[in-house]
């Protein structure tokens, strides 16, 4: 069964460094998403992406964050200058269509900012 894959599973970085989290969505999906979960808190929506542009974003997704689909298969989340509070589990998801459509999630990347 096709699945969303995320790499790496765990990323450790120093505060102020740039990180790129990578995701390979399911191949025929058109909508892509990033969510994050800070330890002990809810899973929070960051951004959705369709047709090579951001379609919706939350207030968390500020100028420090960016997303890109650099080729036909990868979908990346970049954090330009990481802060301690960026430490969280980051989940990528994809869906065939929007809204009520099922979002398929990856297993997540744990980002630890030291």
């Amino acid at each position: 069964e096709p699945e969303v894959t995320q790499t790496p599973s765990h990323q450790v970085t120093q505060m102020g460094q740039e990180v790129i989290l990578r995701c390979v969505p399911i191949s025929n999906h058109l909508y892509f998403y990033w969510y994050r979960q800070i330890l002990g808190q809810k899973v929070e929506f960051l951004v959705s992406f369709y047709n090579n542009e951001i379609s919706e974003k939350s207030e968390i997704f500020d100028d420090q964050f960016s997303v890109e689909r650099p080729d036909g298969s990868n979908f990346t989340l970049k954090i330009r200058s990481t802060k301690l509070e960026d430490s969280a589990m980051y989940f990528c998801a994809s869906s065939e269509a929007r809204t009520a459509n099922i979002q398929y999630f990856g297993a997540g990347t744990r980002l630890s900012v030291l």
Partner: protein
Amino acid sequence: AQTVTQSQPEMSVQEAETVTLSCTYDTSESDYYLFWYKQPPSRQMILVIRQEAYKQQNATENRFSVNFQKAAKSFSLKISDSQLGDAAMYFCACAQGGSEKLVFGKGMKLTVNP
């Protein structure tokens, strides 16, 4: 703003027994969708069941069914004949019509005892 509340952080059930996971939500929209996702340890979230708010009939998927009480804004998940493989974190989520973002509850850890 949408909110989703899962008030029970943990539950346990005996194998083969039935368990009900509770979820309440709040939304100002009339067009919305409700979901239960399951996340086994170190694995990705997978969709368990989905309910369209405009449908009065409760959704069912094999051993999983929901009790959707629209007026009370309640969306509970019933797992019948619990199996060891049902042990996981369970997340309730809501998506408003016209939006791509899922709003999640905090999750509930289900333990299945043999």
